[in-house]
């Protein structure tokens, strides 16, 4: 029975993912892109019921106004650490009250190699406010599909890495209701993140 519920959840979120993907593609026309603060997609809050190894995160909670989720993996030597460093710089560029209303999440798309402790240590290194999560595979699938996160395991023959995870690189801005309010593409400059935080958390 529990499995059935999971399967249903995955199918529903899969559909939601497809729909939101179409939505997003439709939205990228310049006319609509200027409109901000509208809901791009809604993630079933159950999918965010993930307890971090340090217990600091258990689910989306009204204690926080805004969540920033970034999806990656700890074996990523480049894009993920860069993104987390940029996020960390952005967190240093906002006010203390804003920081308090904000929760940053680093979500692993590589549960095989990233246990919750590994992700936790990894994320916390970049900024103590960033919590690392390693969802189970079904939950990960639902989360990524409803947000439109792309990831794919690719074998790298002859590399000690064995396999890499191709992935897109966006910062997803959500509220406690699981509503996706904005996504900011990969950046080497914290400014777009700071701007978005200021917009969504006016002090």
């Amino acid at each position, binding site marked *: 029975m529990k499995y059935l519920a999971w399967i249903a959840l995955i199918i529903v979120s899969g559909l939601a993912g497809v729909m939101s993907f179409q939505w997003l593609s439709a939205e990228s026309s310049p006319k609509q892109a200027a409109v901000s603060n509208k809901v791009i997609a809604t993630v079933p809050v159950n999918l965010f019921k993930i307890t971090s190894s340090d217990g600091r995160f258990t689910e989306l909670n009204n204690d926080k106004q805004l969540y920033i989720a970034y999806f990656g993996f700890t074996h990523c*030597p480049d894009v993920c650490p860069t993104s987390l460093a940029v996020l960390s710089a952005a967190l240093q560029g906002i006010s203390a009250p804003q920081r308090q209303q904000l929760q940053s999440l680093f979500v692993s798309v590589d549960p095989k190699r990233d246990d919750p402790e590994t992700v936790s240590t990894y994320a916390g290194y970049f900024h103590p406010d960033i919590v690392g999560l390693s969802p189970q595979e079904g939950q990960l699938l639902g989360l990524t599909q409803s947000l439109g996160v792309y990831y794919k395991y690719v074998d790298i023959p002859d590399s*000690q890495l064995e396999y890499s995870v191709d992935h*897109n690189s966006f910062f997803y801005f959500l509220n406690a209701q699981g509503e996706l309010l904005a996504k900011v593409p990969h950046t080497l400059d914290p400014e777009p993140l700071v701007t978005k935080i200021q917009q969504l958390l006016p002090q």
Partner: protein
Amino acid sequence: MRSILLALSLLFSIHLAANDAAITVNEAYARATPPNAPTSAIFLTMTNTSEQTVSLVSASTPAAGRVELHTMLMDGDVMQMRQVEKIEVPAGKQVELKPGGLHLMLFDLASNFAEGEEVELTLVFSDGGQQQLTVPVKKVMHKMKHHH
């Protein structure tokens, strides 16, 4: 036998000296890592002052069990990391290994890389030349701070 080896090594070192100038390496740094991080990366800039293409073919460091040459490709907004056999530096050109692109990827780190430390690095080039460098460990944002 010994004299042959000696002659060979002498030849080799002359060869090394002659090729030292082909590639100039600048701005090398290793990325500081979280505790127990599985990997790190080294970034640097290579300038080829010679008249032929010279490639970086391998690298090694006592600080890591293995070093691979990697590149990051973009397919739309999807980041794809792949291993490459060599990194070509055309005559008179500069090639930058930087975040979001080419990098040396380090596996089996002896310990985590803390800012302020240094890492010994050996680069091997296609013309037989080698270079030994001492590379500082830096945080990835160290460069961006100057922009603001």
